[in-house]
């Protein structure tokens, strides 16, 4: 704490503000029933207008600490000790009436899920009006003017129409803008943003955060930004607090903390950021292992008795080839068709046109080459919580893959299962456990084991690490890279996370609206993007450049100034 205040003094930015806006001292929260501490001795000071980020992995207590500021911690959690002072007043001693006035009026909160944080049965207009009615004494006409003004400022094209619209008529990014508008409408002095953009695409994420910073800056609102995303926090904050297992392990001014991390955990977090690896040699003279030609996929087309919906074209003539031992990454925003492409190559979605060739032969379910392809093409799914059958032990789940292909005896199967579990870093005893006894990272290891147990020649990985925590993500990614090098399978790596792609891919394919917009070697795409959409994607994610002291420097990428507005 002392060190942080010292740093602020040096910066000299917040010196004039005098007393802090928010002072938390020694806050300790426990789960009442089992007495487990979820937040221990948490202290934080926030000056007016300051932007502070709290970084930590899931379960580090960062959300709980933030919620306690508004006394919004869940009922099962109680405050064991410490004090919270907002604007000099003790929040914990406030009567309900005063507390309610503070919530929303002085302290605003933006939640993670834009899809559920707006009431689906209320019009946007009345939803925004609610806060104004409650906290400000102003006439109806004035309220309307304020709301329209705010909706315009958050970038809604037609604020008048938006007043009468329902939340479902907007996309996730737009809803988060509306949420932001509803919070900023009351000009709070502190904004708590709990993973405000985790559920959004990279480009939208950047737009929403830029907007948030712009709005808070004009109002002089202090921001407490909570996230697991270190580069994102680094880009927007003055000061960073690193939390682990309920405790603050390190705190400091953003630049200094990133450059010279003191605590080993901070270094570990920084080391877990994906970095570009050395370029690998891929033999381009050999024929491709998998080839996709002019693939089209149509969804929907619901046939009724009298009508027929035209459906939606998810893929529009995509051609792609993957050579042996090559890792090809497909990147794009949600809705770009990248998952559909992966699923149709895996044979889960029936293409409506085009062809998929494996080893030069066309494969379609039922065709001659199909059984061989089925044995050699495996898939790793995104969500480790739903990709394993909860009622079947790990060993049996992995062994199920051995039912097909070469006949093996029960003992041989068991030996192979133990072997592959060992390869993904799980001991033999895991074979008897059930999925719910495993952590997310361990489950994803099982999913990898299941995909690789038959030694396939081609693996499709659909966002295999995006549901995992930063440090676990690194471990799983390293594992995947290592196994890929050892077994030499080709890999189609689907991801929206460009930084992960930068580490693992040999070649990158950028998709948008069901078509490929740019394709090239990893270095070409990341260093010399040609298409404006690729540049836009790249500019959305800052990269961290390592230094020898274990620290990093934030590097902006792509062409930020020349972002081209997307058509509706």
């Amino acid at each position, binding site marked *: 704490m002392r060190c942080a205040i010292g740093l602020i003094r040096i910066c000299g930015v917040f010196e004039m503000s005098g007393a802090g806006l928010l002072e938390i001292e020694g806050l300790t929260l426990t789960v009442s029933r089992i007495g487990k501490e979820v937040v221990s001795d948490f202290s934080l000071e926030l000056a007016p207008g300051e932007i502070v980020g709290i970084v930590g992995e899931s379960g580090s207590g960062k959300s709980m600490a933030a919620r306690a500021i508004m006394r919004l911690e869940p009922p099962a959690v109680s405050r064991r000790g410490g004090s919270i002072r907002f604007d000099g007043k003790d929040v914990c001693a406030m009567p309900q009436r005063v507390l309610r006035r503070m919530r929303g009026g002085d302290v605003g909160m933006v939640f993670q899920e834009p899809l559920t944080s707006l009431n689906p049965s209320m019009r946007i207009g009345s939803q925004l009006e609610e806060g104004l009615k409650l906290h400000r004494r102003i006439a109806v006409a004035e309220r309307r003017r304020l709301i329209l003004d705010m909706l315009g400022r958050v970038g809604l094209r037609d604020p008048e129409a938006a007043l009468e619209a329902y939340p479902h008529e907007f996309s996730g990014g737009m809803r988060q803008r509306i949420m932001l508008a509803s919070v900023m409408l009351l000009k709070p002095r502190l904004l708590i943003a709990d993973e405000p953009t985790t559920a959004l695409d990279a480009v939208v994420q950047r737009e929403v955060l830029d907007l948030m910073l712009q709005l808070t800056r004009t109002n002089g609102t202090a921001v407490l930004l909570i996230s697991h995303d270190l580069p994102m926090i680094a880009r927007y904050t003055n000061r960073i607090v690193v939390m682990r297992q309920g405790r603050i392990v390190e705190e400091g001014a953003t630049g200094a903390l990133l450059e010279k991390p003191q605590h080993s955990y901070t270094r570990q977090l920084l080391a877990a950021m994906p970095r570009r690896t050395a370029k690998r040699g891929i033999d381009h003279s050999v024929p491709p292992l998998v080839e996709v030609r002019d693939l089209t996929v149509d969804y929907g087309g619901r046939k009724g008795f009298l009508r027929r919906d035209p459906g939606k074209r998810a893929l529009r003539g995509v051609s792609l080839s993957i050579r042996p031992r090559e890792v090809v990454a497909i990147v794009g925003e949600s809705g770009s068709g990248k998952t559909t492409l992966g699923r149709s190559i*895996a*044979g*889960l979605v029936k293409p409506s046109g085009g062809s998929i060739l494996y080893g030069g032969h066309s494969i379609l379910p039922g065709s001659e080459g199909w*059984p061989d392809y*089925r*044995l050699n*093409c*495996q*898939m790793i*799914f*995104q*969500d480790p919580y*739903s*990709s*394993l*059958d*909860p*009622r*079947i032990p790990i060993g049996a789940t992995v062994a*199920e*893959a051995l*039912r*097909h292909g070469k006949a093996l005896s029960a003992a041989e199967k068991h030996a192979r299962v133990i072997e592959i579990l060992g390869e993904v870093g799980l001991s033999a005893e895991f074979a008897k456990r059930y999925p719910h006894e495993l952590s997310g990272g361990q489950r994803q290891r099982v*999913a990898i084991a*299941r995909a690789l147990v038959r030694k396939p020649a081609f693996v499709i990985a659909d966002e295999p690490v995006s549901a995992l925590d930063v440090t676990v993500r690194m471990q799983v990614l390293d594992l995947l890279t290592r196994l890929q090098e050892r077994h030499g399978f080709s890999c189609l790596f689907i991801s929206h996370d460009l930084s992960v792609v930068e580490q693992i891919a040999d070649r990158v394919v950028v998709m948008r609206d069901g078509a490929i917009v740019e394709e090239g070697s990893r270095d070409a795409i990341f260093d010399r993007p040609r298409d404006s959409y690729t540049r836009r994607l790249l500019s959305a994610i800052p990269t961290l450049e390592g230094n020898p002291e274990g620290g990093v420097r934030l590097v902006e990428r792509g062409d930020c100034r020349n972002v081209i507005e997307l058509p509706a």
Partner: protein
Amino acid sequence: MRLPSLNTVLGATIVSLIVGAGLVAMVWTPYDPLKLDFLARLAPPSAHHLLGTDEFGRDVLSRLMRAATTSVWISILTVCASILAGTALGLVTGYMRGWTDRILMMFNDALLAFPGILLALGLLSVVGANMYGIILALGLAYTPLVTRVVRGAVLSLKEKEFIEASRVLGNSESFTMVRHVLPNCIAPLIVLATSMFGWVLLAESALSFLGLGVPPPAPTWGNMLAESRTYISQAAWLGIFPGLCISLALLGINLLGDALRDRLDPHMRGL
């Protein structure tokens, strides 16, 4: 593991008492439940006849016990039959979709639109009032509900990635269905089966009350209650005890059902 709640214990006790009484009555009852004894007509509860006797001097306790056998047996068979049929239909319709699903579900919804007891009444007048007729009628009346529940579970399970993973491994649809879909439907099925047990018991009693149940002189709670109406002013126990049995049985089953739901329903898990 937490201790079971009072409700759970109470529910389990009542249900095991009734099932136990039914089992015991298969081999032993205090008196022969069908034996007439005109010297002891309408005797009030006493040391000889713990719960009194009816208008023919038959021991009420023995009759209640034998009735429990009949009711429990009918309920178990009916529930099993409709669970089996409903699960098979639900799996097929949920997994196949398309026209199979549409036609089967059309019939299913048509059946579902009838109140169960009305449907059973209609069927019973066709197949005749006997034990297997009742099982058939009630089973048919409750199958659509099971189909709906299983189909719903299958539809949501189909979206899970582990089902897709099974397809990617090259497993056939039927293997996937039996190995991955069915076991994950078990929890909601157990909860449903428990509640159905209660509904069937009540429906069977109602049918017997209306004279469409197991034919006399075989005792059931329903026909005992029906016969008691004539003597309600002289011998109130004739109506009270069968009525109590029905209410207690339903209470026990519902308490047990709630406990199972808390235990097995994934939405409630971990709270």
